């Protein structure tokens, strides 16, 4: 008989970080760990996991914050050894409501005591669709930059796209796209399709690309602002060891001093 090896806390924490890496900001379609949202992961001996995260502003949309917190909780609870997952949001206007909702496993609507009347699932679907469009655009753009013929791209099916020699970056983009393509329109069929799974015709190709491009412009606006605001808010530039504090350091201290 072999005893099940108990992973040390550090290895478990690594597993948690891995899982969290697959959770995305629904609006930006980027990993919450790569965005720098997750600040702490603690794993107790009994398998209880505690995660702390932050967002670029105090005002970031509460629905997205709630979705991310919920996705993180689920991702962690999928680990076989995880007994509980506590997710805590800091420095946010609705931190209290969201954290309480997480702790009690409440639905979004209930966490906000009836203040919220929206359907989170609908928002989730909307943004999965946008991510699908954005990922598709990235793949097509990458392939066109390799001077591939648009007609040949239209003729590709999913397997052929997967088998294409597109380089390492291309591979990453294709994998990301096909993951989501399966969720949105199902497996198989033409590689590049509209939201309903229909192939793109030669006549519709330019319009299709233009509409995908606009989705990219929209999400990139949010993405760029989020990254910039996050860096500004938490002053990401690491301090130079041993350096004398400068005026900037004192200015950064200001908000902590309060009134």
């Amino acid at each position, binding site marked *: 008989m072999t005893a099940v090896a108990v992973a040390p806390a550090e290895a478990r924490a690594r597993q948690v970080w891995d899982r969290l890496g697959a959770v995305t900001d629904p609006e930006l379609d980027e990993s919450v760990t790569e965005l720098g949202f997750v600040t702490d992961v603690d794993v107790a001996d009994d398998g209880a996991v505690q995660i702390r995260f932050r967002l*670029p502003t105090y*005002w970031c949309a*509460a629905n997205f914050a709630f979705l991310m917190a919920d996705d993180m909780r689920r991702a962690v609870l999928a680990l076989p050894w995880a007994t509980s997952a506590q997710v805590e949001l800091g420095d946010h206007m609705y931190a209290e409501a969201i954290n309480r909702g997480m702790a009690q496993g409440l639905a979004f609507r209930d966490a906000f005591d009836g203040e919220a009347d929206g359907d989170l699932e609908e928002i989730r679907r909307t943004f999965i669709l946008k991510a699908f469009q954005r990922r598709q655009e990235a793949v097509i753009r990458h392939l066109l930059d390799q001077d591939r013929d648009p007609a040949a791209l239209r003729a590709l099916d999913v397997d052929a796209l997967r088998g294409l020699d597109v380089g390492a970056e291309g591979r990453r983009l294709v994998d990301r796209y096909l993951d989501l393509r399966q969720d949105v329109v199902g497996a198989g069929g033409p590689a590049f399709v509209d939201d309903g799974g229909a192939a793109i015709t030669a006549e519709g190709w330019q319009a299709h690309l233009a509409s995908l491009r606009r989705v990219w412009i929209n999400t990139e606006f949010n993405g760029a602002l989020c990254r910039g605001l996050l860096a500004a808010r938490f002053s990401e530039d690491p301090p130079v060891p041993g350096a004398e504090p400068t005026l900037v350091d004192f200015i950064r201290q200001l908000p902590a001093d309060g009134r």
Partner: protein
Amino acid sequence: MYRTKDGEEIFIIDGHVHLWDGRPENWKNVHGQQFIDCFYGYHTFLQPKDRQWSREKFYNYGAETMYNDLFVQGYDDMAIFQPTYLKDFYVNGFNTLEQNAVLKTKYPDRFILNGAFDPRDGEAGLARLEEDAATHGLKGVKLYTAEWKGDSKGYKLSDPGAQKFLERAEKLGIKNIHVHKGPTILPLNRDAFDVADIDDAATSFPNLNFIVEHCGLPRLDDFCWIATQETNVYGGLAVALPFIRNQPKYFAHVISQLLMWLGEDKLLYGSDYGIWTPDWLVEDLMAFELPEDITRETGAKLTLQAKKKILGLNAARLYDVDIEAKKAVLADARQSVAAE
């Protein structure tokens, strides 16, 4: 005034400026601090490093600094005040018509004062609008449809209450309705970026102009679609323009979409001062050329004529500014200052 290398004078109307009081003594609660700190985040992100302010200066830069930054260091010839009340966060309000009026009184030829209304204020709000219009001769208002008020999590321009205010505005000669649709505060679960209500209002009020501030970013696609359907819908470039320096390729995509869908007659420059300053924004826009691959993709062109329209001619048309007459007045003012 901006002068091209060939000596051509370009008259600049800044469509979006603020004079706020973000000092701790004006904070009503933590939201007041978080709001101005969020603005400071925008500032440190996109304002060039060598022109960034300390947080303390950002909280309260004062009227004379503003005048200097816009008209002496910057190229603005005129600027339009867009008030932001936020009375729930700030003891005396953040940036009100009354505060702005002080500068307008001191420099009457430089500023255009816009007011604000909230349809949820009902009859009292209508009376207030009448009074403000009479006192200040308003030609425009700035609206925040996503702002919370009591139990309300915002409103739509298509709401009956809003229609009543728009009717009154038209009657009072307030023909320019600036609507904030962009990065927003307090979006709980509604889609605060939604621009669909603009469509409705623009159709119902063909004599009013609807200037969508921040171009409905991040809903550029919906906004462009609506703006092509309605001839009285405009795009304000505040917040989009500052990307021009550290993300020029991205800015090129945005401006070419706007040029393609709305056209050069429908776009208004705005610095969003004090988040950003007009000096570098105007220089960069004047020097900007669309990359060839984007021009090929969209067919959009950013010509000198387009830049002149964006930087001043379009706003002059909306606000009945006679540019030649204004140039003469401002030149006289400069001479009398020099003579003193």
